[in-house]
């Protein structure tokens, strides 16, 4: 068990080192998210729809698409020089590889969110300080689900033709039970409802995370072996 987590951590750190060594992927995804948030602003008629009504949708849709963008490149790094063979020949277990890569993706996604959410607050003039804690919980749960499914599918898509198109096609149906609860819970919080009313959504998110982290980790070895 010790080894398993240790190996996963090693791999996660390696992926993050690569990611932040160049920083270009992170910046690209971040800029994409910010641009999206800004564009939505200009597509918005503020007299017809209030910021509190618009923001949850914008936030979680942008989360999904910027997440996809970020996930796509996470396996490219193993394919450049065939490094995945080095990993597969090593003593590390396939599940640990999955957990490590998913963990690195999680940090990446949360790092983007840490800037995108305040950006929404800023651009839409929507103070989020009061709901910061529950909103962070939603963001973490949503990110875990996104990353579990996305890491598995980006590994699969990397082996196929049309991988940039295939990844969204495969992943988006699976993101729906993440986006609906996240957006609805955020909307409830923004309209000043007590946290308790958002609880059923959060429970659904948690259940999704538990099921899919396990399922994706168990399915991962099947996408690797030859």
């Amino acid at each position, binding site marked *: 068990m010790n080894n398993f987590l240790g190996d996963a951590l090693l791999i996660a750190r390696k992926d993050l080192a690569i990611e932040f060594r160049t920083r270009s992927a992170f910046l690209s995804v971040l800029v994409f998210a910010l641009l999206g948030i800004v564009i939505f602003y200009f597509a918005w008629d503020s007299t017809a729809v209030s910021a509190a009504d618009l923001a949850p949708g914008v936030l979680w849709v942008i989360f999904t698409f910027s997440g996809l963008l970020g996930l796509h490149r996470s396996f490219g790094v193993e394919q450049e020089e065939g490094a995945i063979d080095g990993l597969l020949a090593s003593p590390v277990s396939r599940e640990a590889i999955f957990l490590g890569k998913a963990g690195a993706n999680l940090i990446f996604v949360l790092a983007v969110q840490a800037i995108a959410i305040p950006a929404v607050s800023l651009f839409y003039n929507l103070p989020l300080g009061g709901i910061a804690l529950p909103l962070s919980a939603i963001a973490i749960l949503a990110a875990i689900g996104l990353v579990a499914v996305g890491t598995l599918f980006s590994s699969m898509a990397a*082996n196929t*033709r*049309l991988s940039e198109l295939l990844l969204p096609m*495969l992943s*988006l149906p699976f993101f729906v*039970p993440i986006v609906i609860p996240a957006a609805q819970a955020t909307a409830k919080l923004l309209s000043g409802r007590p946290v308790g009313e958002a609880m059923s959504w959060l429970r659904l998110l948690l259940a999704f995370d538990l*099921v899919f982290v396990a399922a994706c980790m168990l399915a991962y070895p*099947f996408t690797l072996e030859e």
Partner: protein
Amino acid sequence: MKPTPLSIAAAAGVALTYVRAIYFTPTEAVQGPAQKIFYVHAPSAWVAFLAFFLVGLASALYLWLREERLDRIAEASAEVGLVFTTVVLITGPLWGKPIWGTYWTWDARLTLTLFLWFIYVAYMVLRGAIDDRDMRARFSAVLGILGALLIPFIHLSVYLFRTMHPRPILMKPSAPSLPGEMLTTILIAFAAFTLLYVALLRARYRYAVERDAARLSESRHA
């Protein structure tokens, strides 16, 4: 395609259903003749989900047993299931327009079927994007199983969404308790469609067998 006893029986069953539905089943008082689409819509939905259940089952068994036939069953069931799902999504709005005045309402079951359609399409696109037979079978199997796990979550999400966003009460198109003759017709329809599904599945499976055999001899002579 050679007609087999099964496919003849299926075709006859479907024909019988429609004769009965159109001529021998009373017209529903409130909805009028449009309600008869129900006899296509509901059984198609049943088959759509049945087909996906089989995809999920065949996928799980394939990963366990690595038997090629299971992969072909999954492939065949997915394609047939996609067709029936499309039928549901077309008949739904066709039924909805005369009844509700709009083509699309986010009805919980129709929404779930819409997502089923997306999963089917993703499955077919995935299969089409992989040339290696073994990889294709493995990857599709993973998607098949995960897709089956996804369905209940989508259902829950949509259900929770609907309970939190109650819609104005509309006429319920399919009353849970149907008068005698309508009930009989719909049961016949379900049986006929199931038979049709099995016939199409077998035909599609046989096509897959022949196609794979042709590919095999092609590559041997290449």
